[in-house]
């Protein structure tokens, strides 16, 4: 029996790209994001997809929209929701499965995680 | 209405100015010729008929200026604007018919005043008559142009209609004299008034039609479906009866009417002829 695979929805992919930009310092706190329509052109996505991504990021308190001014990157208040935690755990599961297959032990993974925490602001 | 006048005037401003300049140039040319040769050589002197000639020339130029309104889809765009088609119709009549006529008369009067002609009253009256005559001719052309779609057919139709109208007026005059209305018919003011009223009626008909036709009929010979048969019948009857002024009704007098009517019928109804398959 085949299992239906789903690649990550486009809006989620955009969300992760924006978060990655924030994490790597390309976007700073207080930076203004492109408008929904501009982002749609830049990313080659539909405006509704971008709107969905922005909305979700707002719910996660990563960005905030000020009426009349635009959408800005928020300070990281460290508020995490359950859904996000579940997603993180799922991703970790995938990583651990792959690592085990490649005979990489937990200690190696730990040291990588430490390194990354240091590199990413 | 103000919007229609302003907008159409603005779009055509270059052409309107050119038409006015044309009037002035023609005046200078005629004045020059007259001075050079002496008054008698040309029939047109500064105190008679100059106005009529100017009006005629400027009206023809105005006609040329409006022909492109259809081919360049200006009319189409105007029908989307904040003035109605009928308002734009009046606007065109004002800028392209009334303005040249008034300007022609004004130039003539001005010239007459400058050369200190004694006959200002006659000049004014001539201009009034010429003006009304040309206004009437223009109204016939406008009506035909409104009903007929393709440009070349408008021109052919206008010529035909004008020929019919002039025969008609000769016929009307003759009949009136027979009925003992001789004095009335030969009264210039009366005929001018009648001509003016007929012109207004024809323009009124065009005004009405302009509001009911759309761009989908631009290429139709007769743009108002209800007028298709009337046009064919009109061609038949006019070519049949009008020559009756001069010659009696015989079998051969049916030939031309039938031929012209059939040709008109084909253009108007575009029947699918069997050999075209």
């Amino acid at each position, binding site marked *: *029996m*085949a299992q239906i695979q789903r690649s990550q929805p486009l809006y989620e992919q955009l969300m992760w790209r924006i978060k990655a930009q924030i994490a790597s310092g390309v976007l700073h706190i207080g930076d203004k994001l492109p*408008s929904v*329509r501009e982002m749609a052109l830049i990313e080659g996505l539909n405006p509704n997809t971008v709107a969905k991504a922005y909305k979700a990021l707002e719910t996660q308190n990563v960005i905030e929209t000020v009426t009349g001014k635009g959408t800005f990157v928020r300070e990281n208040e460290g508020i995490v929701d359950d859904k996000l935690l579940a997603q993180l755990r799922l991703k970790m599961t995938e990583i651990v499965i792959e690592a085990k297959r490649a005979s990489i032990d937990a200690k190696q993974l730990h040291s990588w995680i430490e390194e990354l925490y240091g590199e990413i602001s | 209405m103000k919007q229609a006048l302003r907008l159409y005037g603005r779009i055509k401003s270059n052409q309107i100015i050119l038409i006015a300049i044309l009037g002035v140039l023609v005046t200078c040319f005629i004045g020059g010729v007259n001075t050079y040769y002496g008054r008698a050589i040309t029939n047109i002197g500064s105190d008679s008929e100059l106005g009529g000639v100017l009006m005629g020339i400027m009206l023809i130029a105005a006609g040329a200026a409006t022909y492109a*309104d259809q081919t360049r*889809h*200006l009319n*189409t*765009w105007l029908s989307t604007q*904040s003035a109605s088609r009928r308002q734009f119709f009046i606007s065109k009549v004002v800028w392209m018919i009334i303005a040249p006529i008034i300007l022609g008369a004004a130039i003539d009067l001005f010239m007459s005043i400058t050369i200190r002609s004694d006959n200002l009253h006659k000049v004014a009256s001539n201009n009034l008559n010429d003006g009304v005559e040309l206004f009437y001719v223009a109204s016939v052309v406008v009506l035909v142009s409104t009903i007929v779609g393709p440009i070349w057919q408008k021109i052919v139709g206008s010529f035909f209609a004008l020929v019919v109208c002039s025969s008609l007026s000769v016929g009307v005059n003759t009949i009136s004299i027979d009925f003992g209305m001789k004095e009335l018919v030969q009264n210039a003011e009366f005929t001018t008034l009648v001509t003016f009223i007929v012109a207004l009626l024809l323009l009124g008909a065009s005004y009405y039609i302009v509001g009911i036709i759309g761009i989908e009929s631009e290429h139709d010979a007769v743009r108002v479906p209800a007028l298709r048969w009337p046009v064919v019948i009109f061609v038949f009857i006019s070519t049949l009866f009008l020559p009756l002024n001069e010659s009696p009704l015989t079998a051969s007098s049916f030939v031309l009417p039938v031929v012209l009517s059939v040709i008109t019928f084909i253009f108007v109804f575009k029947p699918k002829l069997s050999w075209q398959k």
Partner: protein
Amino acid sequence: MSLILENISKKIHHHAILNNASFELKEGEVVGLVGRNGAGKTTLFRTISGEMQADFGRIGLDNKDYMKTIAVHDQLFYIDMPDNWLAYYTPKRIKSILSVAYVNFDSEWYDERLNQFGLNNNKRVQNYSKGMKALFTIIVSFASRAQYVLLDEPLDGLDVLVRDQVKQLIIDRVTKNNTTVLIASHNLVELDTLVDRILLLKDGTIDRAFAIENNKNIKKYQLAYDGDVMPEFLRNNGTIIAQVGHIVTIVFDNFDEDIGIRLAGSDFKFIEELPISSEDIFRASFANEVYAWQQELGGEQ
């Protein structure tokens, strides 16, 4: 201020081109109008703008009858490019004319844009290149400051750079002035990055309206079937977009649990759900036609 079309019908020479077309446009929306060639998109634009009179139906602008209230006609801009009177004038003259036609005409913005794109103010528009004509059409459309702008194939035949500039102009004006834009186009891929939703004109009416992210029942899959013959239920329930050997790309227009269960069954070795685009939905809307030409091309594989 909404623009509402109700039951617009139009016959041209006895052919019904529009047949009860209805839809609503709100402020600040970018909406796409798609349909097959000859479906009536241009006729629809001409009927909305007033070039043609609808045989039947109503157009409401801000609760006024648009067809009868000619004073509000400066709230809508539509120019039948390329075949129109504008081509014979220079941008300078056009500015002078449109300032009279459109009471809010933005002359400053107009001049700035002409400058920005290097468009010659004293050259007749007909002598512009195709790309410059397209740019000019967009500039003049938005300079009118009309609330509703109708664009007929604005990106047609333009090179990539000009297309980007045109798209940028459109979203800039929509964002700043809350203009509503209705774009008729064949290029659904590009439309997808611009529009909030798409109206499909089919058989003279708005057959369906769709928006990316708002289609719970439309799904696209790439799958590999087991065995020699493609399962019948695929063709009966969906539109096949591509097929190479045993691998099929298919769009289901009315996806339900039953289909889901069958897909998870033993007929299929591999199934992946793909993101759906407007082109996919367009194809699914013409499932019969797609099936017919696939048959013509050589029957089942």
